[in-house]
C-alpha cells in the first residue's frame, strides 16, 4: 500500500497521503464507536433500571446518536460575555484532539499500528496526563463559579490517580521488558496479565474510571453540586467536542486495559475455534467489554465524596501500587524470570559504564 502511494505521488507527498488515509481509517470508526457508545450507555442503563431507553429515532433508536450530533451541530454556540474567548473556544478542542491523537500508538492487530513507537506506553501515559488541561482551561475561561470549582476538582483528581496508574504501568513493564505496546501484548501469549497481576488490574481499572471522570468518580461534573461542572457554560458544538472527547477517552482507557491486562488482539485460547476470529475483532470485543463495565459501574454505584476520593487515591492505591512494584520486581528476580534483553549492549558500551574509580 505505502509503496503504491510513494511511487505514484513521490516520496514526501505519497507518504503524507498514505498517513492521512491511515489516520482516517482509525478516526472514522473511532468516532462511530464514540457515537454508539453514547447510545449503548443510555440503552444499557435503561435496561438496568427497567426502562426502555431511546427507541424512537430509527429502528431500536439506532439513529439517536446521529440525531443528537446534528442537533448540537445546528445550535448556536454561546460564548458568555465575561468569558476569556480564546481559551473558552480552545479548551474543548484540546480535549477532543488529545482524545484522538493517543490512538496513533494503539495496535489493533499484530503490527497493525499507525506509529510503532519504542516508547508507546509512555506516549499513552503522557497524552492521558495532558487531558486535564482542556478541563482546567474550560473552567478558568468560563469565568463562572461552578465550572471553576469543577475544574479544580478535576485537576486534583486526575493528578492524584495518574500517580497510581504510573506505578501500575511500571509493574506491567517489569514483566515485559519493553515499552512497545506490540511487545506488551506479545508478552501475554501464555498468561494475560490480569491473572498474575490481578491487584494491579483492579487498581488500574478503578484509576481509569477516576481518570476519565466517570461515575462513581464524576465529582468534576457532579450535577447535584456543580450543575454540570466544568462545561456548565458550554453549548452546541463546543459542548459536543467535550462530550466526544470524554467518550473517546473511555474507549481509550478500555483499549489500554485490553492491551495491558487482557491480552490485546490475542485469542483467549490458542486453539481452533478461537483462532479463526481475526485479532482486531478480539481486541474490539475486549475493549467493548471494558467499556460496558464502565456503564455498568455508572448504573450501580453512588458517587464518592471528594475526601474519600482523595483518600482512596493517595492512602490506598499509592502505597498498594508502590508495594506491588517492589513485590513484582522481587518475585521476578527471585525466580530469575526477569525478561532478558534480546539485544544486549555491545561489550564496549558495557565496559565503559563500569565505575571509573579504579
Amino acid at each position, binding site marked *: 500500500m505505502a509503496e503504491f502511494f510513494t511511487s505514484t505521488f513521490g516520496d*514526501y507527498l505519497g507518504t503524507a497521503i498514505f498517513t492521512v488515509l491511515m489516520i482516517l481509517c482509525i478516526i472514522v470508526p473511532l468516532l462511530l464507536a464514540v457515537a454508539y457508545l453514547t447510545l449503548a450507555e443510555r440503552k444499557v442503563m435503561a435496561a438496568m433500571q427497567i426502562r426502555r431507553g431511546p427507541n424512537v429515532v430509527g429502528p431500536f433508536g439506532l439513529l439517536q446518536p446521529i440525531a443528537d450530533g446534528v442537533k448540537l451541530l445546528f445550535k448556536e454556540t454561546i460564548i458568555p460575555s465575561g468569558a476569556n474567548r480564546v481559551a473558552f473556544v480552545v479548551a474543548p478542542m484540546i480535549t477532543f484532539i488529545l482524545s484522538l491523537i493517543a490512538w496513533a500508538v494503539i495496535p489493533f492487530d499484530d503490527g497493525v499500528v499507525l506509529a510503532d513507537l*519504542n516508547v508507546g506506553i*509512555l506516549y499513552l501515559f503522557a497524552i492521558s*496526563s495532558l487531558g486535564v488541561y482542556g478541563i482546567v482551561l474550560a473552567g478558568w475561561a468560563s469565568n463562572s463559579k461552578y465550572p*471553576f470549582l469543577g475544574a479544580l476538582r478535576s485537576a486534583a483528581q486526575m493528578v492524584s490517580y495518574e500517580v497510581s496508574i504510573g506505578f501500575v504501568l511500571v509493574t506491567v513493564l517489569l514483566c515485559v521488558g519493553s515499552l512497545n505496546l506490540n511487545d506488551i501484548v506479545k508478552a501475554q501469549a501464555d498468561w494475560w496479565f490480569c491473572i498474575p497481576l490481578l491487584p494491579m488490574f483492579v487498581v488500574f481499572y478503578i484509576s481509569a474510571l477516576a481518570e476519565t471522570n466517570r461515575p462513581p468518580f464524576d465529582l468534576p461534573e457532579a450535577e447535584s453540586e456543580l450543575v454540570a461542572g466544568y462545561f456548565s457554560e458550554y453549548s452546541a458544538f463546543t459542548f459536543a467536542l467535550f462530550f466526544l472527547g470524554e467518550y473517546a477517552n473511555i474507549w481509550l482507557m478500555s483499549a489500554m486495559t485490553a492491551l495491558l491486562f487482557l491480552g490485546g488482539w490475542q485469542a483467549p485460547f490458542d486453539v481452533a475455534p478461537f483462532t479463526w476470529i481475526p485479532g482486531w475483532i478480539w481486541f474490539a470485543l475486549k475493549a467493548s467489554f471494558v467499556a460496558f463495565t464502565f456503564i455498568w459501574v455508572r448504573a450501580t454505584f453512588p458517587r464518592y465524596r471528594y475526601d474519600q476520593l482523595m*483518600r482512596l487515591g493517595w492512602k490506598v492505591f499509592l502505597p498498594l501500587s508502590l508495594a506491588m512494584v517492589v513485590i513484582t520486581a522481587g518475585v521476578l528476580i527471585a525466580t530469575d524470570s526477569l525478561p532478558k534483553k534480546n539485544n544486549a549492549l555491545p561489550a564496549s*558500551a558495557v565496559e565503559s*559504564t*563500569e565505575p571509573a574509580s579504579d
Partner: protein
Amino acid sequence: MIVQTIAFYVFAAVAVMSALLVVGNRNPVYSVLFLILTFFNVAALFVLIGAEFLAMMLVVVYVGAVAVLFLFVVMMLDINFVELRQGFVRYLPIGAVIGIILAAELIFVVAGSSLGTAPAAAPTPALAEATNTEALGNIMYTQYFYLFQVAGLVLLVAMMGAIVLTHRDRSGVKRQRIGDQVARSRNSVELKKVPTGKGV
C-alpha cells in the same frame, strides 16, 4: 533530511518565541500556557535527535504534573497587574545577576565540551543496538547509581519539608474513621432480595 531540517527550525523558533512570551506576558495564565508550549516544542526537538524517552519524560513530568500545579496556583491567585509591574526596577539588579550567572554557566559548559575538557561521559550506544530507554537505564543504574539515589533522597527531604511546614493539627475536626464504619454491625442495614426484572 530536508523535512527534518524544516521541522527543527519550526520547533526551535516556536520554542524560543514561546519562551520569550512566558516572561513577556502580562496574564500569568497565558504565561503558564506558553511555558507548556515551550515544553512541547523542546520535547519535539528531543524526538528529532532520537531521544524519544527524554521527550516523553519531559511531557509526562513537566507538562503533565509540574505545569498543572503551576496553572492550578496561578488561576487561583488574584493578581493586581499594575502592582506587579511596579517592582520592575527594584528587582532588575537581582534578575540581571542571576541571568548573567546562568549565561556564564551555559557558556562554560558549551565551551568546555567543545574544548574536550568536560568530564568524559560514557559513550552512548548506537540507536540500532539499544533503545535509548535501555541506554539511559544502564548508565543511570550503574555509573551514576549513588548520585541517582542521592537525588531521590533530596527530593524526599523536600517533600517531607513541605508537609512539615504546612501541616497543622486542628482540634475539633470530625474525621471519618473507616475502620469503625467497616466494623459496624449489620443490624442497622436491611438487605432485600430484589427479583430480576421487577425492581423494588
